[in-house]
């Protein structure tokens, strides 16, 4: 793997209207610390990833359309490597190098 053990490289995808919050770009490849906080030995989870995305990637001030009460806003589906995050422990899932994580909003009109 290209990234050092200190860092994780993951593919993050936004859909269902969420891409509007992230510079209208659907797919992002991001590198983030493998531990959160980076000096600790605590593995980075989806919860950490979401905060990282808000702080580092989101250009839109409407953070609460993505995160509510420190986790992914209800109504947004999360797929980890194409599987429902509920199968993986939801936001406690420890992010692995090379993971593909998709956030889909169901909140937009049909």
């Amino acid at each position, binding site marked *: 793997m290209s990234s050092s053990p200190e860092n994780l490289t993951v593919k993050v995808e936004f859909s269902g209207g969420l891409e509007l919050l992230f510079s209208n770009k659907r797919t992002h490849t991001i590198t983030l610390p493998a531990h959160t906080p980076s000096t600790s030995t605590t593995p980075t989870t989806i919860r950490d990833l979401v905060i990282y995305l808000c702080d580092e990637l989101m250009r839109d001030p409407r953070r609460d359309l993505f995160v509510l009460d420190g986790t992914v806003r209800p109504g947004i*589906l999360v797929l980890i490597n194409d599987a429902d995050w509920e199968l993986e422990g939801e936001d406690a899932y420890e992010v692995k190098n090379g993971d593909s994580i998709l956030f889909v909003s*169901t909140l937009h009109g049909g």
Partner: protein
Amino acid sequence: MAPKPCALCTVNPAAIVRPKDRSALCKPCFFNVFETEIHHTITSTNLFARGERIAIGASGGKDSTVLASVLKTLNERYDYGVELILLSIDEGIKGYRDDSLETVKRNAKEYGMELTILGYKELYGWTMDQVVEQVGKKGNCTYCGVFRRQALDRGAAKLGVKHVVTGHNADDVAETVLMNLLRGDLPRLSRTTSIVTSTPSSVASSSPTDPASHTNIKRSKPLKYAYEKEIVLYALHKNLTYFSTECIYSPEAFRGSARALIKNLERVRPSAILDVVRSGEDMAKLCPGSDEGCGGACGSSTSAIPMAEEEEGGCGSSNGRNAGSEMANMDRQLAQNEAAVENELEVEITFHGRDGTQQKIKKQPKKIKGQAAASVPRKAVTKQVMGKCKKCGYLSSQEVCKACTLLEGLNKNRPKNHIEVGYDAEPENHVRDLAGQVKGLEVGSG
């Protein structure tokens, strides 16, 4: 950690957790279960009749895209023998509807379905962009909602179609149930929870055989029991292309509190959504004004089908109701309570006393101390008679339907000509006209 196997086939790795029972399924099993449940909804409610021509209200969004795809699949698999066509309404919102209509066109080609696009401009002489230019961004959703409701019926009538299906899902229904509950509007529950509503032929239906009549169009929601989550996952895993963006005029609409409440509940207890839908159905049965007692599960006669709302709110369901419609709703509610008395649905208990005289016990709402609990006067209201709008012929309880009333207001204030400084115009019109002149005599909404 080895991936969890599918609860049904036990072979493939699970990819989806179903909200209704938290079972973990693989993609093929999920597709099958999802489609089969919709098939069950359709057959158990006798929703379709062989030979029927059915218009799918298509917006290009996830719900109508999945609806079109699933209905095509089921029609072929189970041989319903229905003809499916797509009907889209173009509100005339640049940068919003333009793009989603492209999605609908693509779907039409992909599914081999005939597509009709009907515009507000064509129907009412106004695009939503022009309406907003005139009325501003407050209350514009009311116009859009009223216009859209009629537009689908008019479109269906134009196509000679008697049945329109829409993509309303379980989350939508649960949201509406909660909103009616929070508004204290139980009589409406029957119509919002029923799988079938109709724009009934008016009492004075002059031409019941007129194929172009838009007063007898059946509306149904085959996805009524389908979770929004599953609809999105179905679209995603089936690689269906749908369009998702918020209407540019109601960026806040999707943050409606009822919606947020539903989604929060789902996170804690996923079955809550269907439970709310079922509770809504059960409450509807008990409500005065309930037109039917089965949630649409029985009875195919028109009389057993609840009436469609004339004035359903705009998108996002939470906004777009103005004070006028609240009043009309209140009147309607009172009228329905009257009707309930006649039907001896609670409200009043009549029994014969020993001396043969009739005694009545009125059930009163419990008085709340110190509060004018009965301050809403239960005045006698003339029974609601559904007639036709004298202007356009659309079903209406008023002389002039809501759309025509709104249009009248719009047309009255439509600036005839920007250049001419209106001598009888309102002060702000002067300002606007002058501003128009300053901008180089732009010719306005033409």
